[in-house]
């Protein structure tokens, strides 16, 4: 029987500084480990600890995986100190991921904040694999400052990917180079170029942002079953056994981490 707590080894083949606190690590696992967009994996700094992350790369690429990681806790600090050539562990994939089938033929409004863009980048690549299967792809991103925007080097190429891709970025606080919107991400959700009654919204970001974006989307007329949220909870095992990530009758690791608002709206302890 397979040991679900054991990781497989992976070599760090590239490290990109996204911002002062966020890096993208490209890993080459020594055994095949595929995933579907939105699923997550546990990354181990061997002998030190592990933490859950959603790959930010295209799920069609299986030999290497990207993880975009913010330096925010014990394990991420150690990961940030690692370099190309270092060895980490990878375990997974876990969770259900994004239901691409439900997105087909729809107008999609993807709202991200900060390092929450990591799973969304993977989703965007998955959508781009079959870009004409989606009626419209609207991306609304928020960052604290222009320097805190991740994937800057790629976003222009996303804009150029297809005519029906529409991207807007806002920052909480601008600088003298910034020409875009200044304000929280909720301020760029007005006048969305989609038919709200039939569109799908996909949200990933810090808990407080998720909460206010969800309320804004509801106010705009999105149905609870059309809002897909990545629920950030403390996860240890990733397989629904350790008990940490429980939300009502669900475990975020096993039943999520992507939930529709309809699934969780009447549950307790959702937003914190």
């Amino acid at each position: 029987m397979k040991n679900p707590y054991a990781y497989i080894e992976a070599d760090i083949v590239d490290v990109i500084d996204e911002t002062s606190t966020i890096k993208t690590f490209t890993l080459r696992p020594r055994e095949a480990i595929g995933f579907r967009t939105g699923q997550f994996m546990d990354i181990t700094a061997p002998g030190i600890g592990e933490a859950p992350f959603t790959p930010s790369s295209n799920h069609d690429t299986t030999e290497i995986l990207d993880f975009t990681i913010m330096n925010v806790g014990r394990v991420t600090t150690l990961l940030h100190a690692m370099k190309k050539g270092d060895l980490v562990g990878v375990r997974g994939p876990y969770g259900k991921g994004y239901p691409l089938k439900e997105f087909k033929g729809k107008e999609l409004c993807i709202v991200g904040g900060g390092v929450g863009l990591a799973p969304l980048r993977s989703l965007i690549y998955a959508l781009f694999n079959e870009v004409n299967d989606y009626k419209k792809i609207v991306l609304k991103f928020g960052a604290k400052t222009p320097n805190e925007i991740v994937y800057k080097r790629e976003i222009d190429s996303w804009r150029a990917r297809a005519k029906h891709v529409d991207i807007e970025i806002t920052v909480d606080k601008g600088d003298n180079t910034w020409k875009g919107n200044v304000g929280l991400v909720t301020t760029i959700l007005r006048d969305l170029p989609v038919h709200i009654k039939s569109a799908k919204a996909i949200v990933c970001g810090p808990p407080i942002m998720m909460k206010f974006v969800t309320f804004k989307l509801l106010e705009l007329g999105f149905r609870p079953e059309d809002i897909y949220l990545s629920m950030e909870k403390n996860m240890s095992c990733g397989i629904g056994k350790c008990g940490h990530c429980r939300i009502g009758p669900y475990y975020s690791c096993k039943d999520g981490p992507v939930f529709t608002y309809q699934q969780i709206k009447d549950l307790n302890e959702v937003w914190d």
Partner: protein
Amino acid sequence: MESSYYCISKQSFIDLLDRLAKHYSVYVPYRKNETLSFGKLDPEQETSIEIGQIRQSQPLKSFLNQALEKVMVRDPRSEKQGKKTVVVGVKACDLVSLRIQDYVFKEGDYKDPFYIEERESTVIIASDCADPKETCFCVAMNGKPYPEKEFDINLSLLKSVSKESYLVEVATEKGTRILNEFRSFFTPGDSSHIKFRDELRRKVTAQIEQFLQKRSTQRASALGGIMKKQFGNIELWSDNASTCVECGACNLVCPTCHCFLLSDQKVGGVPERLKAWDSCLYKTFARVAGGANPRKHLWERLRNRFDKKFGFFAEVLNTFACTGCGRCIEACPGDIDIREVLKGLVTGTWAKPPHL
């Protein structure tokens, strides 16, 4: 397979265990002052072995899902020298907890191979409760003070005075193998023994009924929907949590609590992964690295303990994750009594903490 009945004297049974210990790691209940606790069979301590009585201070899960175990790289069974485990004197309130532990570790998409290995190889020699304590409330949780399932062999006390002996019920292949190997230790059981056993079972059940009535302990039938009803009753939760010191003892002694934490260490440069029992009362239990914590307050974490037992498991498994063993009542340094908390949840009234 059908149960079959035999008799064995206490001395013969202990002799049998001594013989079994050549092939198995045998754990038996010892009396230590007021409590019973499991320990490895030791010829020098045989006089303090106590089979009847009530549940031991350690829950059965300690043998199946150890408090701390290496899950990567896996320990060879060095301590046990490859021996399988026999646990003696296991009570019904522990046996029914296996429904929860099995659900978590044996069922679903991912299985825990370490639990399954122990669960399948461990021999459970259960026993009826002969002398319940005031903290026993299994009957309120739809349980019985005697084993009905999940045992390989069960022992029912036949004579309690000088010459203790047991009615032996063999229920599985594993039990039958032991019976066959030690056939000469047993004598046939008959209907008079079963009658004696049933009489004692009725007496003990009635005793627990009296405990329940005396303090108006709520029964499982009254507990449906209580978490939905009282989740938002902050006063109830904060009053009940006012003496909680966040020690996690209730989780450790609970036969159904299953939460754990994986942690990594390096030993001689080699990375290892450990799996250790965790407590939902600890402040960091649900906190994420970014700092968000859905249960910042201690009362939210005490509420979570009840929500897991009486909300979550009711919803996903149609059962409550409490067997009425009463261990948490004895373990709590803050005197938090699960029976009183449940009473408050059902009736909406509870005693105010004395210091408030």
